[in-house]
């Protein structure tokens, strides 16, 4: 696993990124309110790093990912992916980026076209890039995510939630990306399926030497898959560090509240109650 060093070009480098959205006007002659979704975010992801982003709902995690994947432009600031400033690239030059960096979303059903066969879904990024999609590449991808080759002929609704998430991972891997970006990929899944998908992600990241950027609201999940984590709060990164360090010894007040409100089996069996978690969430020292 590559360690971040100063002389290695970062896989992803985010500098002073802001993103402001305009909400609909509340009344005809009132100004449209502005939402500062990102307020100056900077971070570096080294090649081979497994980088987690955690934070509460609305903290700007998905906005940041969409900007890293060039699905959206920042209001200000820059994003470099493997040395290229993607914020400066015109739309037609983003194809190269799409090949290097692929996205997996939370809701596998929402991101899989129900009318397409799984084989065509998986081949879609290849076809979009003008490649022919050989059947054996599709079979190989399905096998890599633990599905049988005959899955290619079926439709998404014929699969369980965990299997659908495997399909979207297979699709993301099709163009042989270096960087896999996942937005809450296991949040909609059962614990048992979650374990299977997390193992799959860990296996693929190892085997294919991928750089992983993994967004989750669940710090315990991020701790499992990522070596480094950035904690976001209200559009800012408030703390970055190794996951174990951030989890075991949080520094920022928000991270402390986040960590002490996580229910765990061990703590619950040792007598930690909902009251205790709520006190932790409120910042009262437990």
């Amino acid at each position, binding site marked *: 696993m590559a360690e971040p060093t100063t002389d290695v070009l970062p896989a992803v480098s985010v500098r002073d990124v802001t993103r402001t959205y305009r909400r609909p006007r509340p009344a005809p002659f009132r100004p449209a309110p502005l939402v500062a979704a990102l307020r100056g975010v900077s971070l570096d992801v080294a090649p081979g790093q497994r980088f987690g982003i955690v934070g*509460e*709902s609305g903290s700007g995690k998905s906005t940041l990912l969409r900007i890293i994947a060039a699905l959206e432009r920042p209001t200000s600031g820059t994003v470099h992916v493997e040395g290229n400033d993607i914020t400066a690239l015109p739309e037609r030059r983003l194809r190269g980026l799409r090949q290097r960096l692929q996205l997996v979303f939370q809701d596998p059903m929402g991101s899989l076209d129900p009318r397409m066969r799984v084989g065509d879904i998986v081949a879609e990024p290849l076809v979009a890039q003008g490649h022919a999609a050989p059947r054996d590449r599709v079979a190989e991808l399905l096998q890599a995510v633990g599905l049988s080759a005959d899955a290619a002929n079926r439709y998404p609704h014929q699969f*369980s*939630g*965990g*299997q659908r998430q495997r399909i979207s991972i297979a699709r993301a891997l099709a163009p042989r990306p270096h960087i896999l970006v996942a937005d809450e990929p296991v949040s909609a899944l*059962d*614990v*048992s*399926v*979650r*374990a*299977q998908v*997390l*193992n799959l992600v*860990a*296996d693929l990241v190892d085997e294919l030497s991928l750089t992983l950027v993994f967004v989750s*609201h*669940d*710090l*315990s*999940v991020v*701790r*499992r898959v990522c070596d480094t984590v950035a904690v976001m709060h209200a559009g800012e990164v408030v703390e970055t560090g190794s996951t174990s360090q951030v989890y075991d010894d949080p520094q920022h007040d928000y991270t402390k*509240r*986040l960590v002490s*409100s*996580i*229910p*765990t*089996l*061990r*703590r*619950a*069996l040792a007598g*930690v*109650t*909902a*009251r205790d*978690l*709520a006190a*932790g*969430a*409120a910042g009262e020292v437990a």
Partner: protein
Amino acid sequence: MTAGATGTVLRVRDLAVGVRDTDLVLVDAFDIARGERVGLIGESGSGKSLTALAVMGLLDEGLQVSGSVRLAGVDHDLVGADDRRMARVRGRHVAMVFQEPMTALNPTMRVGDQVAETMLLHGSRGSRSAARSAAVDLLRQVHIPDPEQAARAYPHQLSGGQRQRVVIAIALANDPALLVCDEPTTALDVTVQAQVLDVLVSGAAARGAALLFITHDLAVVATVCQRVLVMYGGHVVEAGTVQDVFTRPRHPYTAGLLAASDLDAVDDRGRLRTIAGTVPAAGHFPDGCVFRNRCPNAQDDCAVAPPWTGPHQASGYACHHPVPAVAEVGRG
């Protein structure tokens, strides 16, 4: 029912829910005692929500239901009761909190009025003004900041966590004997979840209300509940105190769930432990033991449905080849 006197709030017997010729839920028996907090866990598709909906009398028209569901203070069986009778039971003797608060709230009505309305509907407050001030009180009890102001807000003007607290206030409004919660905090951030769970537990405790609490999250169950029912393939496969079931599981399914949800425990390859395979679609579970096609302990005799082993419905498991009891392993 006599159960009230013995301290039982809910008594479920031979509950069967099905669609056409497919069984979806087949629960032999479980009871919930007055003020008791019971968790209901199991993978997606295990039948948790159908069980909850059967208790609430809210099953889809198309589903067949049989058996018996008795609630303290209600002089008839809830199974087979018509809508008119169930409307008198729901919101009064038993109330429900769902995952998505907006499904329970009226978007065009101020939240304070919605809380007050529930009380007026069941006659637990005499006048509109008494109900209004009781509603503000309740909003305060569920820790909604500035409750007088919040009572005048519409649901969309509140955050997700605040809306779920309003739903809890409505659920508690008539001091029900039982609160059924189906994934009440799954959509919330952990910090908000902690506060909502606290409000739920303390609100129920203050009224002596029992809790039937459904979630995928074993850590949440362990934090909130005293006892737990493990469900798979429509059956309760194991039951017991949270301490017993979560530290000394006997059913291989429970052991698998615990292992898979433990994000700190990994195998020698550094990978999380998983349960083999996936939950079959309804109607495709094996006969005999429903778990046997995924079970590491399965043998030929599992083709015959395992009987319940244990002192009573509140503690035991249904398995021919259980995980050895820890004490035996320790001594052996």
